[in-house]
C-alpha cells in the first residue's frame, strides 16, 4: 500500500512540474505585452496616456527578465507558498486563492456528500425495486436531473424559494441556509448520474453466479444485496465519484457566479476576464493539484474496497 502511495506521489510530482510549466506559459499565451496587460487590468481595460508608463511598469514588476528566469523565480515561490501578487489588488495570490478555495471547498464537499448519499441510496432503491413503479419514477427524475442544466435549476429554485416563498436567501455566503440552493443546483446532475450508474451496476451484479451461490448458502436477500452485490459494484462507482469531484469544481464556475459565492470558480472567471494572470495561474495550478490528489485517493480507495486489485495493476 505504502509503496503504491509513494509511487503515485512521485508520478504526481512529475505531472505537477509539467503542469507548472504550462501554467507559467499562460503569461505568454495571453496576447499582448505583459506590462501593457497589467496596466489594462488595473485601468479596466484601458491604456495610460503615456507609453513609457508601460515599460516602467514592466520593470517595476520584474517582468523584463528573460522567461526562464521568471519561471524559476515563480516555481521557487510556489515552494514557499508564494504565488505572486494579483495585478489589480496587489494582494498575495496565495491569500486570495486560500479564501476562494475555502468557500469552494464548503460548497463542493456538501455537494459531493449529497451526490454520494442521494446517488447511492436512490440507485440502490431503484435496483432493489427493479422495474417497479418507484424504479420508473426514479428513472424519470434521473433523466430530468441529468438533462436540466445547473443554471436553470439555480434560477428556478431562486424564483420559487427566495423570491416567491422567501424562505431561503437569494445569494451570498451567509451560513447554512445560503448553502442549500447552490449545493442542490451543483449536485443534482451528478447525483442523478450516480443513481443511474448504481442501479445499472447493481442489476448487472445481481445476474452473476455468486449471487446464486449466496442464495444457495441461505443468506438473506438483504445480506446478499448489501454485502455482496453492492460491494462488488462499488469500484466503478468510486471512479465516477472521483471524476465527479472534478465535475463539481467545473460546475462551481457557473453556480458560484449565479449565487455570488466567492469561490475559486468565480475567481477564475473574474481573473480571466480582467487579465489578472497571476491569479489565473494560481487557480489553474490549484485545480490541477486537486485533480491529481483526487486521482491518488481514488486509486488508494480501490485497493481498499477491492483487495483483489493489486497496487501494481493500478499503476
Amino acid at each position, binding site marked *: 500500500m505504502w509503496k503504491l502511495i509513494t509511487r503515485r506521489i512521485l508520478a504526481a510530482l512529475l505531472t505537477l512540474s509539467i503542469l507548472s510549466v504550462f501554467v507559467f506559459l499562460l503569461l505568454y499565451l495571453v496576447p499582448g*505585452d505583459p506590462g*501593457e496587460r497589467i496596466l489594462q487590468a488595473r485601468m479596466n481595460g484601458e491604456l*495610460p*496616456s503615456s507609453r513609457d508608463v508601460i515599460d516602467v511598469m514592466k520593470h517595476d514588476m520584474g517582468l523584463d527578465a528573460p522567461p526562464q528566469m521568471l519561471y524559476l523565480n515563480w516555481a521557487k515561490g510556489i515552494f514557499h507558498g508564494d504565488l505572486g501578487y494579483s495585478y489589480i489588488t496587489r494582494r498575495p495570490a496565495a491569500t486570495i486563492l486560500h479564501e476562494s478555495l475555502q468557500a469552494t471547498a464548503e460548497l463542493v464537499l456538501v455537494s459531493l456528500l449529497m451526490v454520494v448519499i442521494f446517488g447511492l441510496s436512490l440507485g440502490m432503491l431503484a435496483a432493489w425495486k427493479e422495474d417497479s413503479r418507484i424504479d420508473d419514477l426514479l428513472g424519470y427524475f434521473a433523466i430530468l436531473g441529468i438533462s436540466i442544466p445547473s443554471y436553470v435549476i439555480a434560477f428556478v429554485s431562486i424564483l420559487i424559494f427566495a423570491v416567491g416563498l422567501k424562505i431561503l436567501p*437569494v445569494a451570498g*455566503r451567509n451560513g447554512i441556509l445560503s448553502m442549500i440552493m447552490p449545493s442542490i443546483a451543483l449536485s443534482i446532475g451528478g447525483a442523478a448520474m450516480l443513481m443511474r450508474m448504481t442501479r445499472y451496476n447493481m442489476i448487472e451484479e445481481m445476474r452473476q453466479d455468486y449471487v446464486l451461490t449466496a442464495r444457495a448458502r441461505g443468506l438473506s436477500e438483504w445480506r446478499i444485496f448489501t454485502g455482496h452485490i453492492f460491494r462488488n459494484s462499488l469500484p466503478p462507482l468510486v471512479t465516477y465519484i472521483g471524476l465527479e469531484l472534478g465535475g463539481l469544481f467545473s460546475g462551481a464556475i457557473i453556480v458560484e457566479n449565479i449565487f*455570488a459565492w466567492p469561490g475559486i470558480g468565480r475567481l477564475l472567471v473574474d481573473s480571466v476576464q480582467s487579465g489578472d494572470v497571476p491569479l489565473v495561474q494560481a487557480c489553474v495550478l490549484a485545480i490541477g493539484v486537486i485533480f491529481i490528489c483526487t486521482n491518488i485517493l481514488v486509486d488508494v480507495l480501490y485497493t481498499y474496497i477491492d483487495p483483489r486489485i493489486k497496487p501494481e495493476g493500478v499503476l
Partner: protein
Amino acid sequence: MIYKRLLILTLFVSSLLVGLCACENTGTSAGETTLKFASPWEPKSLDPIVYGTTATLGITQPLIGVDSEGKLSPNLATSWDVSENGLTWTFHLRDNVLFHDGTPFTADAAKKSLERTFSKATEFTSVKTVPIESISAPDQETLVITTSRPFATLAGYLSKDAADILAESSFDEKNEVVAPVGTGPFKYDSWVPKEKMVAVKFDDYWGDKAKVDKVTYLCVPEEKTRESMLRAGEVDIIGTISPALSKVLAKDSDYAVCTKEEMGRVRHIMLNTKNPFLSDIKVRKAINIAVDRNLICKTILEGVDEPAGTPFSSDLYWANKNLEIPSYDPESAKSLLDEAGWKDTDNDGIREKDGKRLKFTLYTYTSRPELPTIAEALKDQLGKVGIDIEIIVDAAVLEQAKEGKVDMYLVSIGTLLNRDPDTWASYFLPDSAYFDCTNYSPEDVASLVNQGRETMNLEARKEIYDRLQEKIWEDVPVVYLSYYTGISATRANVHGYELSLIGEPHLENVYKE
C-alpha cells in the same frame, strides 16, 4: 466493516462542514435602518489607491469633488488657486472636519496621505506622469503643492479616488491600509474580500449627515441574481443593469429605475491617418457620415445610450456645444468617395481606385461585449457605400498597430478618466499609447494639447479644448459613435438615490420609508 468506516468518514466530513458553515450570523438591532446595495463590481480593496469601493460607500473623500457637469468642485478643499508661473498650488482646506477616529483633518494629515498616494506611483499608474516637487503645510488650513512644470491637470488627479485623504491610523507599519479611516458620511465597519463591505453612519460628519444607519455593499456578479435579490427584498438598490431589465422594472410600481450618463466614456473608431486610403480626408469624412449612429444606439445598445459626435456629451462642461453629431447621409458619403476617385468599376459593390479595392481592417476586442456586434453593424453600413471591412477581434491591438496593420480600431475609452479633458487630448500626442492607431498629431493639434496642459484659467482652458474638439471634428481622425449610460434600480420605498457622473452615489442622501 466497510460501512462502519464509511459511516465514520461521513460523520467526519459532515462535522467538518458544520464547523465551516457555522461561523457568520449577524443580526440587526431593532430600529436600525440598513441600506443594501448590490453591484457586479467586487470590493477589491480597502485602499482607495487600489480600488474605489471606499469612495463609493462614502467612507473616504478627496480634496476636490466633481459636480454634475463634470467640473471640479470643492470637497475637503473649499477652494484652490495657482501661482502666476503655474507651479505652486494652494489649497484652502475645510474647517472643523473630523476623521472617523476623532482626530481633526489638518493640512499635515492631508500632506501625509497625499505623499503616500504619490509615493505609491507605480501602483497608482496614472499618477506617474504627475511632476510633483513638494507638498507642504504652512498652516493647518493650507496645503501647498509645487510642481516642476506647469501641470494644469493636477486638480483633476486630486479628485480621483486614489487621492482620497486617509487618517494616519488607517495604516500598518508597512504603510498598507488595514482599516480606511476617512472623513466621509459613513465610517468603515467591515470587509469580506470578493463579497461585501459594510459602513455605518458617522455622527460627526461635516456635511449633511447620513439618513440611514448602515450601508452594505454586496458584490453580485450575475444580473439575474441581482434582480432576484431586489425582488425578494434582500437589497434596496441594484447597480449596473441592462436596458432590457430596466424596461421590465420600470413597468412595475414596486421599483424605480434611474439612469445617468457615465462621465466621458465614449465608443469610437480610431482611423489610421497613415493608411494611404485613409490619409485622404474625403474618405474619412465619408466614413463619418456613412455610419448610422442612431440605428446602432436604438438596436444594439437597446435605446439607452446616446449617439456621439464629439468626445464629451452635451451635458458636460467640456463639450463644445456648437459641434453637431454628423447626420447619417449615405448618399453624400457616396459622392465624397466618388470625388476621391473611388468608383465601383467591376460592380461587386466595393469601390476601387488604380486597381486597389477600398478595404480596411477593423480591430476590436471582447472585454466590452457589445463592441464586436457594433463592428458587424459598421461592416454592413460601410459596405452599403462601397467600403469593405475585415473585422479582427484581438485584445493585443497595440502590437499590430505598431506594425501598421490596424486601419480602424473600434474602442471604448474614458475621455475624462483623470477628471480633465487632457485625458482625451493626450491621445493626439506621439507618446500616447494609442498613437499608433491614429498616427494623427499635426503641429497645431499638438500645440493645443500642450497649451491645455499649461493653462490654469478654467475659461481659457475650455476655449482651448473647444478648439481642439473642433479641429478633430473637422479632420476626423476619430469617428465618435456613442456615449455610455449607467442604469440602476431601487425598490420604490428608497428615496434620494441618484447616480453620479463618476459613480459615487452619495448614499448619505438616501433614505427608506
